[in-house]
């Protein structure tokens, strides 16, 4: 204290360094003690200085909570600065000292009545920040008054306070009717109040997706648009974001809103600009394209977007991510603005990479020369990541703009000549893609590529090179030598390279069978016998079996003509793009993921969709093609980037999935089962299969294989065989589990007309602890289908295929096959709406098809879902009553025992039964694959076909699905 006083004197003497840094100087022991004494000093001045010191310590993260009572004592003062400082302190520490915080309540309540509106507002604002339940109770009355205060400054502060209170205690806010008051404030006379009310409601609505809080109708829209012109820039953002959620009734309303929003495009605040762009992009969908105004609007959108790029780099980054979406949806807006995306060498790297992406999106025949010149420039820059991306971009240009392909290839060759290692590798990877897009056109460069074989050290480049050698084996004289050189270090290669090498050598063998027999045997044995990787092993077996069974068929399969890759790579999938356009300016737009995928706390965010075009002039669209068709006449085929949801599907041949997760139970057993089945097959396999078959036959894997569920069944070699097998296993299943789990009947998931002739119907089942997807694939097209593969989108429970889709023979026209796909639950998780929705992509040689289906959640009930009685009781009590939901099951004529039995088959376990006044109460538990427990009370009254079920779960969102499963199980 002495030191502090001294210093103060010193400061006074010199009168110069009167800054707050002095508050940082006392860091000695006993500091708290000294401050305490000062806070209790009689002198006002000393008190204030002391509070300032406390605040200073707080800002740097020191714990000064021990001073709570002393600081609160200083609160009753008429000095506004001191009051504010004490309030600052209170907000920080009230949570840790709730009992003490109560002491402050009276002062707050008194301040809320103060004649000075500044103090009223300050008090209500601070009270809302004190997150202590006891205090919030006292807050209600003052808040109610402040919401109706005569002074708009107080009202707008109070509006935000409702959002704060909601965050602390949502129920209280609803009970007290604050939400309605808040809704009334949307019609307030003061635009600032309107803006804050909208902001508060939007925040509250985010945690209540279905609450319909912001019920927008033409009247409220009109009020919002009026307030939009007069409120602060931040208020404008809130209002614009709120407007974007509105769906206009017709194109006329849409146009009038657009007209009133366009002036915002000239705002200095870039967030306002981008929110306005969002509203316009969304409402534009409804305008008929032949309207003059539509063209005017398109023109108006370009300049503000360009202007965003001259802002600070952080703003540029967000703007670029959004522009990336906008140019995919409406490339015409920025098609003349290519040059603003040219990279400056002192741009931050994150801006450079984004600019590059957009340059490619905008590349067209008209500007390709400029773009290529730029890209070549970038390829000699310093930053490795950027150089790589630039080289890749050249390849993408070649694929996108056919006329430029030749120039791109020669540019790439120039770059290869530089011998800079990473440039060469990138170039080879993209040349592979160019080969696929333009087969038989640029193969003259292969010789140059082969020169660089030794310098390749990255798996992707090696795999690409191997693919090229395999694909063009007949034109490369020493292809066998080249591939053999790779084979030496086979086990040190990454899976990607190994798989590619295997395929390439098989291709080579099929092309030059005479000289390469030894090589192919070597690689097959390396893949099947010495490798632990199930993918590699399976592929090895498949090739082996194919080659030995029917080399002609093998040739047809392995050397089949590949589908051309489409021109634009990594476009965002159209439905996702539509959703993201609705989220322009948000985090979702930065990450290019739907908000449901990552925003925490946004429980069940609703997927937004663009409004359909009103287009009265062009309305011959069928209803199910919906809005998408209205806008993009020919939706481009999509190749998502690697690592993306479907990346692996299309690249199956090039970059096979590298997951080395749990090996699918199929591999060992598959061969075993094969051998069992077909003595005939053995002979077909010839010599090579002998060691193989013998090896497997003796292995325990096979014995175990039979006990294992039919999940492991290979889908089929030929349809009839597989049918027979299924029968066999159905029988086995019947013996093992008398009460088979409920499995709904197959339904058509993908109608043939939507999938170029492929019809898929299917269902889900749980057999002996394994979740299965059972599908019937029917070819209703005129041509043969091959190369089936399947992939799931991320889903609520992480369902993922446990193995590849086993359709090994081509599916000829009018043929159907049954496929059973075992699933696991270790895939990536993303919450879906509804919860049990599963989005699936199936690929074949024709195209990729998407469909979604819903699985019964009972499939996810695990076998050890029976809870101990005591635990059940405790858990039931422990889960808050809010989480309980009640349902009625109608028209069910089982008695309680039968119901219990039936449910047990689906892993819903009855723990106890109680009979009260002729009513049976079954207490049941089940556990989901992700460890969520669901507790149930099922009430069955004799003679009454209606059951009542109460479900309790810590994750109440599953209740609805669980109820549906109950209903399905009980009624079947």
């Amino acid at each position: 204290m002495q030191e502090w006083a001294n210093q103060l004197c010193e400061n006074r003497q010199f009168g110069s360094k009167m800054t707050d840094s002095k508050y940082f100087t006392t860091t000695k022991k006993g500091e708290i003690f000294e401050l305490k004494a000062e806070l209790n000093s009689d002198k006002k001045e000393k008190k204030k200085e002391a509070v300032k010191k406390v605040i200073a310590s707080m800002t740097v993260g020191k714990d000064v909570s021990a001073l709570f009572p002393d600081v609160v004592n200083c609160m009753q003062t008429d000095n506004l600065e001191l009051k504010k400082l004490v309030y600052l302190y209170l907000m920080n520490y009230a949570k840790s000292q709730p009992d003490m915080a109560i002491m402050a309540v009276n002062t707050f309540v008194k301040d809320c009545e103060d004649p000075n509106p500044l103090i009223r507002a300050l008090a209500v604002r601070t009270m809302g920040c004190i997150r202590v339940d006891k205090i919030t109770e006292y807050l209600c009355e003052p808040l109610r008054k402040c919401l109706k205060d005569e002074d708009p400054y107080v009202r707008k502060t109070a509006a935000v306070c409702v959002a704060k209170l909601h965050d602390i205690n949502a129920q209280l806010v609803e009970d007290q009717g604050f939400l309605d008051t808040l809704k009334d404030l949307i019609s307030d006379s003061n635009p600032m109040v309107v803006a804050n009310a909208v902001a508060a409601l939007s925040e509250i609505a985010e945690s209540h997706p279905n609450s319909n809080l912001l019920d927008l109708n033409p009247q409220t829209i009109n009020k919002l648009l009026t307030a939009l012109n007069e409120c602060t820039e931040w208020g404008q953002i809130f209002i614009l974001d709120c407007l974007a959620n509105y769906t206009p009734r017709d194109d006329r309303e849409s146009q009038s809103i657009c007209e009133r929003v366009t002036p915002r495009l000239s705002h200095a605040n870039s967030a306002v600009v981008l929110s306005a762009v969002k509203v316009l992009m969304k409402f534009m969908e409804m305008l008929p394209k032949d309207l003059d105004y539509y063209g005017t609007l398109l023109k108006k959108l370009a300049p503000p977007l360009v202007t965003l790029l001259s802002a600070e780099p952080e703003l540029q980054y967000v703007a670029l991510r959004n522009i990336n979406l906008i140019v995919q949806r409406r490339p015409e807006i920025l098609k003349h603005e290519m040059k603003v995306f040219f990279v400056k060498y002192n741009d931050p790297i994150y801006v450079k990479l984004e600019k590059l992406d957009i340059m490619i999106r905008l590349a067209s025949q008209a500007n390709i020369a400029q773009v290529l010149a730029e890209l070549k420039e970038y390829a000699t820059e310093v930053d490795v990541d950027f150089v790589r991306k630039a080289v890749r971009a050249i390849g993408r240009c070649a694929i996108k703009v056919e006329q430029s392909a030749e120039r791109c290839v020669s540019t790439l060759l120039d770059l290869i000549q530089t011998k800079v290692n990473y440039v060469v590798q990138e170039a080879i990877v993209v040349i592979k893609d160019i080969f696929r897009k333009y087969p038989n056109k640029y193969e003259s460069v292969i010789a140059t590529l082969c020169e660089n074989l030794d310098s390749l050290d990255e798996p992707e480049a090696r795999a690409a090179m191997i693919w090229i050698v395999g694909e063009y084996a007949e034109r490369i004289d020493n292809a066998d030598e080249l591939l053999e050189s790779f084979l030496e270090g086979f086990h040190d290669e990454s899976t990607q390279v190994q798989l590619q090498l295997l395929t390439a050598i098989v291709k080579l063998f099929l092309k030059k069978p005479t000289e390469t027999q030894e090589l192919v045997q070597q690689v097959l044995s390396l893949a099947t016998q010495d490798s632990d990787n199930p993918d590699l092993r399976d592929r090895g077996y498949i090739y082996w079996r194919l080659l030995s069974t029917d080399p002609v068929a093998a040739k047809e399969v392995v050397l089949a003509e590949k589908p051309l890759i489409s021109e634009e790579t990594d476009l965002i999938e159209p439905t996702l793009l539509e959703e993201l356009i609705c989220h322009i300016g948000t985090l979702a737009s930065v990450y290019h993921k739907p908000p449901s995928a990552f925003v925490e706390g946004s429980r069940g965010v609703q997927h937004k969709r663009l409004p359909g075009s009103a287009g009265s002039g062009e309305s011959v669209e069928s209803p199910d093609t919906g809005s998408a068709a209205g806008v993009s006449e020919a939706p481009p085929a999509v190749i998502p980037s690697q690592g993306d949801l479907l990346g692996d599907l299309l690249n199956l041949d090039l970059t096979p999935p590298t997951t080395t997760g749990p090996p699918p139970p199929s591999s060992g057993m598959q061969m075993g089962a094969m051998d069992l089945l077909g003595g005939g097959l053995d002979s077909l396999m010839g010599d090579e299969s002998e060691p193989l078959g013998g090896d497997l036959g003796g292995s325990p894997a096979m014995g175990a294989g039979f006990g294992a569920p039919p999940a492991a069944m290979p889908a089929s070699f030929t349809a009839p065989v597989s049918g027979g097998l299924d029968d066999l296993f159905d029988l086995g299943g019947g013996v093992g589990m008398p009460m088979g789990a409920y499995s709904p009947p197959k339904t058509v998931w993908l109608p043939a007309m939507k999938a170029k002739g492929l019809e898929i119907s299917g269902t889900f089942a749980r057999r002996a602890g394994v979740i299965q997807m059972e599908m019937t694939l029917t070819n209703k097209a005129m041509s043969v289908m091959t190369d089936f593969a399947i992939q799931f989108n991320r889903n609520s429970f992480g369902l993922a295929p446990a193995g590849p889709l086993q359709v090994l023979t081509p599916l000829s026209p009018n043929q159907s096959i049954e496929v059973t796909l075992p699933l696991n639950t270790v895939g990536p998780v993303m919450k879906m709406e509804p919860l049990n929705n599963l989005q699936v992509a199936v690929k074949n040689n024709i195209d990729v098809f998407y469909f979604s289906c819903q699985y019964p959640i009972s499939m996810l009930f695990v076998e050890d879902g029976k809870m101990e009685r005591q635990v059940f009781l405790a858990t039931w009590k422990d889960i808050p009553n809010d989480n309980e939901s009640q349902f009625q099951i109608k028209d069910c004529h089982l008695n309680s025992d039968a119901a219990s039995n039936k449910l047990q088959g689906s892993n819903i376990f009855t723990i106890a039964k109680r009979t009260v006044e002729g009513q049976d109460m079954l207490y049941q538990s089940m556990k989901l694959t992700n460890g969520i427990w669901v507790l149930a009370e099922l009430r069955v009254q004799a003679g009454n076909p209606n059951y009542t079920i109460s479900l309790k779960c810590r994750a109440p969102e599953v209740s609805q699905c669980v109820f549906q499963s109950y209903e399905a199980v009980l009624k079947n």
Partner: protein
Amino acid sequence: MIHSLFLINHTGDIFLEKHWKSVISRSVCDYFFEAKEKAVDPENVPPVLQTPHHYLITIYRGKLFFLSVIQTEVPPLFVIEFLHRVADTFQDYFGECSEVIIKDNVVTVYELLEEMLDNGFPLATESNVLKEMIRPPTILRSVVNTLTGSSNVGDTLPTGQLSNIPWRRAGVKYTNNEAYFDVIEEIDAILDKSGTTVFAEIQGVIEACVRLTGMPDLTLSFMNPRLLDDVSFHPCVRFKRWESERVLSFIPPDGNFTLMTYHVSSQNLVAIPVYVKQNISFFETGNCGRLDITIGPKQTMGKTVEGLMVTVHMPKAVLSTNLTASQGNYTYDLATKVLVWDVGKLNPQKLPNLRGSLSMQAGAPKPEENPSLNIDLKIQQLAISGLKVSRLDMYGEKYKPFKGVKYVTKAGKFQVRT
């Protein structure tokens, strides 16, 4: 909305934190430090980071990171704009925005932050409004405050907060009434090896300094408003008038503010004031290279080019330089490998030239990349786009103000590739 703010200096110390909702542990910044480590240069740290429970949005200004933590879906631009506004406010209040000055004024900073954001919603961000509530520190005031015990927090309701013109405070009085406008244009350009323009555009801004008594209503008109098709305005500008008559009509904020920014796009021809002849080459053997740069005037509209400066980021292998400048001085920073040639005024009769040899690290391979040249320059009394203010009228007040318009053209991101 915005949950918390951390201020971090470039060495990675958190020296201030502010929470608007519940307190978030500063350990959340570890994700940022990780990204910072990875990015090497502070400029390259990605501005939006995802962590398991939060999002971190960062800006880098004046060697400081302003890191905000958010938990729900918030428009990132909104956050970034706000953070820049915070930095602007510090600059405005304290004259600069640095760690030292923020620590010196930590209590004011804290009060400001509390006033600027409530529960994550922006409250008052206009400097006029803030200054009415929290007075900026001056040496005199802090001495007076210390002696008399009065505070620097205003106790009246800021008038601007509720009126339809929140940017202007009421009751402004000056003895000298004056209004100055600076038209500043920056040329962003990329020239290629041969001197052809790859890309060029003009970023213009009109900065105003208006000290006028009462509630003046100003109208600023241009000789050639057609040049401006891409503009953003200060909220005070009446957009309708601009759309219909192409004049700027506004009630100005008090003091300094940015009236408008504009952008003359690459579609129009942009005049390039200088040309650069350069040759930087490295020899395959002998570990040396040559450099020869000459600068001459091109389209200067008869004005003098001043403040000419050339900056070259040399490849890492360049150890030292041995050059002669016919005009001005040059320095080569060994640590950052930056060559700066400060030329000064461009004399069209005697063109400045810099030439000589570069010596390289022994054994280093010939550098792959070609260094780019960055040019700085300044031309007084010229707006390179040709924009001209024709008149300024004042309505609503009776006195006669002093009026003035200044023009200046500068190089923005002006690069020459080699």
